[in-house]
């Protein structure tokens, strides 16, 4: 017996869509969706669960992650209830729900709090740099160390526990019995989806969107590797230097297109942007762009006298690493692929 909770809808409003109450359950959205199938019927079911406030049902569901937002449901909805944006809002809500610290929800719901967090981190970086007398060498060295440290700690203390929570909500709590071997057997699915996002191709809208996203993911992962492991800013190796240039260019060009798309609202997927969406694409753009300029400054021997350039990059990097990666939209990279993995496991069981 589930209890109806009309206040839940008001909570979801804070994550984006506030039109879904208009739904009259015609099911057009599910009918036109090219990703829905006999195992996972969406988005109407999720719209219904949101209207009724069946939050446990939504928490246990993978459906929001299985939607790749082509927007067909939103354009064909006779009530303009915008089911596509609701699925997006539920992804935001789930991201907050999985996060054990509660910071994700706070950051997503309150723009003020987000701005506060961004400003505090920026002040922190400047304060730290001042304490080092703005010594370029030391700061850049520490910046490199910070990259490694933050990856390790964010992964250990935030992302891993949150993935465990997701697993608990969708597999353990609903009482699905999974053999250990099944987890191993289906593990390849996780990797395939993580690195190909091939499910996007199931969406009717475009192959280009998938391709650009794929290049961006690889560009981002490669730049991460190049800067952290190959020490792009410190290296003299011409190949590595060129590789980093290419990667950063790929990132800022593609994110530039993405930002422009969101400004123009040229596609259904770009029509509704929450602060978390803006932060994600803009910071990724800044990350690529500032990294590119910093390396240019290094190659032109300008960095010694223009420490501000590196500081700018460092501020963006720190904000990215401590706000956006653990609590923001970055996590969809993992949640989406884990959702495919868990879904496969559920189907096998």
């Amino acid at each position, binding site marked *: 017996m589930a*209890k109806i909770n*009309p206040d839940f809808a*008001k909570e979801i409003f804070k994550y984006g869509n506030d039109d879904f109450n*208009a739904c009259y359950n015609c099911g057009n959205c599910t009918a036109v969706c090219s990703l829905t199938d006999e195992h996972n019927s969406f988005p109407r*079911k999720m719209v*219904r669960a949101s209207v009724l406030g069946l939050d446990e049902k939504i928490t246990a569901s993978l459906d929001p992650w299985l939607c790749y937002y082509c927007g067909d449901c939103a354009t064909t909805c006779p*009530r303009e209830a915008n089911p596509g944006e609701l699925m997006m809002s539920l992804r935001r809500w789930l991201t907050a729900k999985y996060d054990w610290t509660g910071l994700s929800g706070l950051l997503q719901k309150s723009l003020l709090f987000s701005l506060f967090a961004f400003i505090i981190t920026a002040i922190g970086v400047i304060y730290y740099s001042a304490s080092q007398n703005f010594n370029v060498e030391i700061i850049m060295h520490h910046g490199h160390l910070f990259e490694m440290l933050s990856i390790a700690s964010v992964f250990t203390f935030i992302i891993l526990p949150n993935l465990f929570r997701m697993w608990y909500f969708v597999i353990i709590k609903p009482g699905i019995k999974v053999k250990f071997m099944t987890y191993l057997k289906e593990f390849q699915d996780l990797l395939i989806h993580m690195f190909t996002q091939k499910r996007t191709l199931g969406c009717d809208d475009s192959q280009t969107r998938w391709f650009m996203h794929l290049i961006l993911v690889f560009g981002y992962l490669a730049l991460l590797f190049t800067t952290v492991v190959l020490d792009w800013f410190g290296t003299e190796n011409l190949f590595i230097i060129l590789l980093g240039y290419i990667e950063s260019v790929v990132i800022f060009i593609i994110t530039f297109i993405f930002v422009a798309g969101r400004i123009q609202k040229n596609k259904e997927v770009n029509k509704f942007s929450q602060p978390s969406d803006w932060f994600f694409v803009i910071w990724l753009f800044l990350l690529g762009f500032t990294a590119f300029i910093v390396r240019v400054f290094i190659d032109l021997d300008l960095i010694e006298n223009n420490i501000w350039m590196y500081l700018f990059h460092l501020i963006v990097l720190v904000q990215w690493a401590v706000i956006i990666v653990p609590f923001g939209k970055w996590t969809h990279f993992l949640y989406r692929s884990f959702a495919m993995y868990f879904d496969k496991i559920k189907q096998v069981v």
Partner: protein
Amino acid sequence: MKNKIGVYVCMCGSNISDYVDVEKVKAEAEKIDGVHVAKTTMFACAGSTQQEIEDDIKELKLDAIVIASCSPKLHLDTFRNVAQRAGLNPYNYVQVNIREQGSWAHSDNPPLATEKAINLVKGGIERVKHSKELIPIKIPSINAVAVVGAGISGMRAALELAEMGTTVHLIEREHFVGGRTSQWNVLFTTNETGQEVVTRLYHQINSHPKITLYTGTEIIGKKGSVGEFNLTLKIKPRFIKPDCKHDIKNLEKAIEVCPIEVDDDFNFNITKRKAIYKNYDSEFPEIPAIDCEACNKCGECVKICDDIDLNQKPEEVNISVGAIQLSTGFNPYEPAKGEFGYDEIDNVITLQQFKRLIELNGGELKYNNKEIKNIAYIYCVGSRQVDGPNKYCSRYCCTSAIHTSILVKEKYSEINNFHFNRGIRTYGKQEKLYHEASEAGDIFLQSFEEAPPQVERIGNETIVKINDILTNNEELEVSVDLVVLITGMVPREYEGIVNTLKVPVGRDKFFNEIHPKLRPVETVIDGVLISGACQAPLNITESVKSSLAAASKANSLVSSGEIELEPTMAIVHNDRCTWCDKCTEACPYNAIFKIKHDSKEVAEVSKSLCKGCGMCLPVCPENAIDLIGYTDIEMESMIEALIN
């Protein structure tokens, strides 16, 4: 005897010809004496075929026609008109039904269907041979109409009739006008209140010289028939002097001192009122009335107000009208004890009570001193009953419930509305409201008729449970502060009128029209028209539409001073009649009277009352009654042809 008969056998597309061999029917018909021409047609009712038949009648000088097609209920008038246009008397036409009684009924056996069709056609031909030229009867009529019920539909009809020049007697059973409409506050789509609408109509009616309004009045007797009904009205005393100066202040004081309190049915019994009362300030007629059933004549009010006269007696008035329009309206369905907790759980009320509650409530929305935040609306209570008598949909309730839920949310923003429905039917423009309500966050849950929602009291909580078919039949529940039963419409109790006027009542107990599509405001009693929610559940717009239709119909009937009636009626052969009285008992229309004819007591049939139903014929031991258009010789020759 007709001997130049035209026979037309219709295929009805393939509805008839798929099972009945129409060519064979035609061939058999041709062989019969007196048949001049026989043809088959694709659609006898098609314009071109009608023209062809007309031409045949004229060119071949046919003296009778038989059309073998569908039921005469559908096209009798169509083909009578064909005959008329061609200069043939319309009663020299017989329709034979070989579709409903032939092809459709016997689609499993085409040869026998054909045989039956042949016999039916033979019977029709024999009958038409003996048909006579009949001429409609004309009777005088009074250009006056009695409109019964001064609700919105009756008031609107009265105005319309008066504007067209007909004298109107507007008869209202209650002491005040406005009916149900005055009980509703804000109305969709105009946002006027019911009381405003009633006020406007009342002023127009009051100032119209052709309208006489009778309040507290019922029809207790009727004589005569269409053209001249003589009605006896009984007027209840209002106990206020007719020359009252409208000293409202004194009358208000009189209401204050009245010691008697009764349930206020204007507020659907959620409040009490005095024996001397007025339902709301701007109610019309302006002066209060005394409820003679509740009043014990203690005289307290008389001490304060000179205008009160407790010695008034009921009055009887006779009026003569050409037609009667009934707009007697509806009652809300009264749920049974325990139906969704009604009358058992204290916070279960009906939509009508809820609407009054909202209007009467000032600040916070409270019921039984408990603040209301969550409201469950349970739809289709008393309508669309699977096992109960009310199989019909009451039409207005979905819209009214949603409209009310929007109003209540506008007034109290913290309210949560839960609609437990069986499919929302906000047809037409009313759909806008449904959209508005769901956008505002109202939650709609749906179940099938066999698994209605359950209302339970658990401790202090009232819980409504449902297996929601929109959520994969999952069992959902919500705790609510108020359960509103969306009760549909049932007819008002009007035995008096039914008995006095002999208005036909349908299986659903609403007044019955002749034909729902073609003659929707007329009854089988000539000159008695029905309009508004006494006929079927209707909303205000629909009620007014039907009342205007009935008003036009009434006006067109009586305004020319003459009424044309069907010639099909019973006649008595005086030589054979011995006045045994059996026929008067059999007549459902009270159309037969005893008269003296050449010093002999015989029966006579009133031309204006007889409907030609034929009920009197078989009971006459002397075989003294004949039915024009269905005379013994016509029927007997038809039967003979059928059985040979």
